[in-house]
């Protein structure tokens, strides 16, 4: 007899169900939505960084054939309720000054929207934009965080009176003064992270369709959560949330950008209501680069208290963050950066002080690991400490990294360190990469005038983080599952996948738990009329949505077995679900097809009145015990000192995201994050000049990594330390992007060590390398 091996989908490289749409051109993105009578929007945008609007002439544009509406900032503002937008709205309130959807009195960055034009085609809408004249009185631009600190600079928001957001007093954790008193020496550095950005291949996009007969607004959105869009749209348009339906199909990437809904998207919905017809706006690439949002511009004054044998006792950190104009996300990050900066290391004390500057640049948005500055600063600093003390960087990390289960059991900033495997990731890296052999090659290469470097960095990420003993739940992820009439299962999740493959991974988990083939589970996303509230972000879906899918499948199965027990006159405990049927164990002739159970449940009076016959089950999952994600990355590079080009010879990842749901999807997340980190260090920069003029508005100026720059990436999965009885999947979306910049930065610093170069900044394109080694003069 042939042995039947029990197979599980969870843990297997199941091919993605999404790909059947994506690979054949049948996926429907917002720009693919075409509605009858649909009009097209375009925006007139500010050409200057900072100024007052002194005149606006839209008459010629209004007269252009094909133009249906021209809405100024004043006109639009009269049609909306006040409130926040974007991340601030989604997170429950604005921090910082209030502002209008389109500019009314002032413009605050290049690309600030001033007028909305709606026309029969995008071509005509853009023609009309050309006919609109805006007069400005120039104000001096505040083009850097340092400039924002200068009280003589003109306030970007007059009502604030300054360009600095209220500063919180320094937070002190542990015994920071004691740590510095006990130190053999203090090592200081001024470390910077440069401005770069998400750049999803699909920019922001919306089709808003208001039906004047029903008073209902339907929004086709590119978003990380349809309910976030609904709540903001309803609030700003003064509608009941139940009168707003938000739908989303394929989303062409986001990486944090499409969190909530933006000023332009709300303006388009207002225009649709005003006109009573559908209006589409597709952000073009120049708009996307200039004004959709940018991230990661912080500088840090850091002091480390260290002993001569390489123990880092404590840190004093002062952060200055450039939040751009219209502060939102930028004001929310200090807490998480300071909370995470000790990483997986034993520190006795930390002080952290932060200042958030408002500047005439694009607004600071979430970008894959928004708090990643903490890893950049710490891991670069650790290599600088190692260099100063003459200790190998690997050895320095080993002397400081925590061992799971041994004190300290919490970070100095408070989070439990339960299940941290940073030490194992370092040790596995040392097994995988022969450091001694590299040092020999490096020495030999230097003899030939070639500069090789090796760098590593270690991080942990609360994805979702371990649940503290007696502490609050890690989340409340809603999910529903329904047994359909044909015996298949539909799972309704608030997750809004935009590349992560949740329709595959959540189906893998539910199929295993319920006991049906993968193909029988359909994961429904992206419709406020169908799915529960939720969102995708923060590397939380593996644990939260994975656990929710498992739990709801279990609950639905319990319900099915209960009903089958009545039909088969057997105890549910004696039943098994196999081959799409429920049967009494060992009695295959008793098998009832799932479809028959669904049919019976739908039949009135078939079961006793006290039996719950609903096969539509909703649960809320709290995140279980959670756990850390994290790992160590190691890069080997060669720097061509003639051209400044950096070639990545080898890139190795040892990561731990707990139990893998689908290794191919995990590896895709890791590689994609590494690629963005490669881009951040070697290519990408959202550059401005001193007048706040944006210099990187095309892909000829904002350079993204291609298949020529991103190396093959070796990945080892640790999959250690189960904390929870059922759910040990942990998030992996952000880690690659968090730890790659310091990994490559450290490798370049190592390569250039013969030049006596200190690497204090993250952006190291060829011209900067040549400046650092003295081949060319700094700009």
């Amino acid at each position, binding site marked *: 007899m042939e042995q039947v091996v029990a197979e599980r989908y969870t843990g297997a*490289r199941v*091919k*993605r169900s*999404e*790909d*059947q*749409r*994506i*690979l*054949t*051109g*049948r*996926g*429907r*993105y917002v*720009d*693919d939505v*075409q509605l009858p009578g649909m009009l097209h929007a375009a925006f007139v945008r500010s050409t200057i960084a900072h100024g007052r609007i002194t005149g606006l002439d839209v008459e010629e544009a209004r007269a252009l054939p094909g133009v249906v509406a021209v809405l100024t900032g004043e006109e639009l503002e009269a049609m909306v309720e006040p409130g926040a937008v974007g991340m601030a709205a989604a997170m429950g309130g604005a921090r910082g000054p209030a502002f209008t959807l389109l500019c009314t009195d002032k413009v605050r960055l290049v690309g600030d929207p001033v007028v909305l034009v709606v026309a029969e085609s995008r*071509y*005509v809408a853009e*023609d009309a934009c050309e006919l609109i004249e805006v007069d400005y009185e120039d104000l001096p631009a505040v083009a850097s965080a340092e400039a924002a600190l200068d009280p003589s600079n003109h306030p970007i928001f007059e009502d604030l009176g300054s360009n600095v957001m209220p500063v919180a007093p320094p937070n002190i954790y542990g015994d920071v003064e004691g740590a510095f008193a006990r130190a053999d020496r203090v090592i200081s550095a001024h470390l910077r992270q440069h401005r770069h950005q998400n*750049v*999803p*291949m*699909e920019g922001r996009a919306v089709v808003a369709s208001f039906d004047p007969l029903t008073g209902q607004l339907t929004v086709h959105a590119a978003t990380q959560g349809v309910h976030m869009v609904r709540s903001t749209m309803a609030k700003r348009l003064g509608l009941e949330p139940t009168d707003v339906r938000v739908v989303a199909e*394929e*989303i*062409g*990437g986001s*990486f944090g950008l499409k969190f909530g809904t933006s000023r332009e998207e709300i303006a388009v919905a207002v225009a649709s209501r005003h006109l009573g017809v559908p209006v589409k706006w597709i952000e*073009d*690439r120049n708009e996307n680069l200039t004004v959709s949002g940018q991230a990661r511009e912080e500088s840090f004054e850091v002091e480390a208290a260290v002993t001569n044998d390489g123990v880092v006792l404590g840190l004093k950190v002062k952060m200055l963050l450039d939040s751009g104009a219209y502060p939102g996300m930028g004001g929310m990050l200090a807490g998480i950066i300071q909370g995470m900066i000790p990483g997986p290391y034993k520190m006795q004390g930390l002080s952290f002080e932060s200042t958030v500057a408002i500047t005439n640049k694009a607004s600071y948005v979430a970008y894959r690991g928004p708090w990643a500055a903490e890893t950049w600063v710490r891991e670069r600093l650790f290599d600088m400490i190692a260099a100063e003390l003459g200790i190998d960087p690997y050895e320095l990390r080993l002397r400081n990294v925590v061992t799971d289960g041994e004190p300290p059991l919490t970070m100095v900033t408070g989070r439990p360190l339960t299940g941290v495997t940073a030490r194992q990731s370092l040790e596995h890296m040392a097994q995988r990469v022969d450091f001694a052999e590299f040092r020999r090659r490096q020495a030999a290469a230097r003899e030939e005038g070639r500069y090789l470097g090796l760098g590593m960095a270690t991080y942990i990420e609360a994805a979702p983080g371990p649940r503290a003993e007696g502490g609050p739940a890690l989340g409340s992820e809603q999910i529903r599952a329904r047994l359909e009439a044909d015996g298949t299962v539909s799972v309704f999740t608030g997750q809004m996948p*935009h*590349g*992560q*493959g949740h329709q595959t991974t959540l189906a893998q988990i539910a199929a295993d738990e319920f006991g049906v083939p993968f193909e029988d589970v359909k994961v429904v996303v992206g419709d406020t009329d169908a799915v529960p509230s939720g969102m995708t972000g923060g590397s939380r879906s593996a644990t939260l949505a994975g656990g929710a899918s498992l739990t709801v499948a279990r609950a639905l199965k319990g319900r099915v077995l209960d009903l089958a027990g009545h039909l088969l006159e057997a105890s549910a405990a004696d039943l098994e679900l196999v081959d799409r049927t429920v049967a009494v164990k060992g009695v295959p002739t008793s098998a009832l097809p799932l479809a028959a159970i669904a049919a019976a449940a739908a039949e009135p009076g078939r079961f006793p009145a006290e039996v719950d016959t609903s096969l539509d089950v909703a649960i809320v999952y709290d995140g279980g015990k959670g756990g850390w994600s994290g790992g160590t990355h190691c890069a080997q590079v060669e720097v061509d000192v003639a051209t400044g080009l950096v070639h990545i010879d080898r890139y190795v990842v040892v990561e731990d995201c707990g139990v893998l749901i689908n*290794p*191919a*999807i995990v*590896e*895709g997340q890791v*590689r*994609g994050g*590494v*690629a*963005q980190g490669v881009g951040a260090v070697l290519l990408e920069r959202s550059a401005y000049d001193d007048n706040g003029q944006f210099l990187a508005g*095309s*892909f*000829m100026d904002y350079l*993204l990594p*291609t*298949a*020529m720059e*991103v190396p*093959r*990436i070796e990945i080892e999965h640790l999959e250690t330390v189960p904390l929870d009885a059922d759910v040990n999947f942990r998030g992996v979306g952000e880690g690659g992007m968090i730890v790659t910049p310091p990994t490559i930065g450290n490798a370049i610093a190592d390569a250039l060590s013969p030049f006596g170069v200190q690497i204090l900044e993250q952006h190291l394109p060829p011209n900067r390398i040549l400046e650092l080694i003295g081949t060319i003069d700094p700009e």
Partner: protein
Amino acid sequence: MSEPLDIDLVVNGQPRTGRAEARRTLADFLRDDLQLTGTHVGCEHGVCGACTVLLDGEPVRSCLMFAVQAGGAEVTTIEGVTGPEGAMNPLQDALWSSHSFQCGFCTPGFVMQATALLAEQPDADEATIRAALSGNICRCTGYESIIDGVLRAAGHDVASGH
């Protein structure tokens, strides 16, 4: 604005006619006029490659061409290399097996570029594939999975786990 011009061309093997202003891009004509929305527009300045289609067998950026320039030509889009009912061709199937893509927005451009490559070099090696695809930008994957998919389609062994 100018008077629309007549356009006759063959798209995915079917003769098609249309009218478009001289300035209308081939991408917009395919997507909006012919409802072939599988071709995506990622940058509108010819860098990202998402809008790549085949024009008489050669890959072109449909955002950089005017529709009228395609008059008399044979255009192939992602819809044209896909079988009936959305059945995948061997290249698409290899990309599927390799978990090549994530969000999918760049995907049609990569499929068309790789289609053109494999038509010329059915057994292309990794260096050739990387160079041939270096004008297509993917923001999600880091490219390795895409390279592996095309290698697989070119008949090379790809280590399991990719």
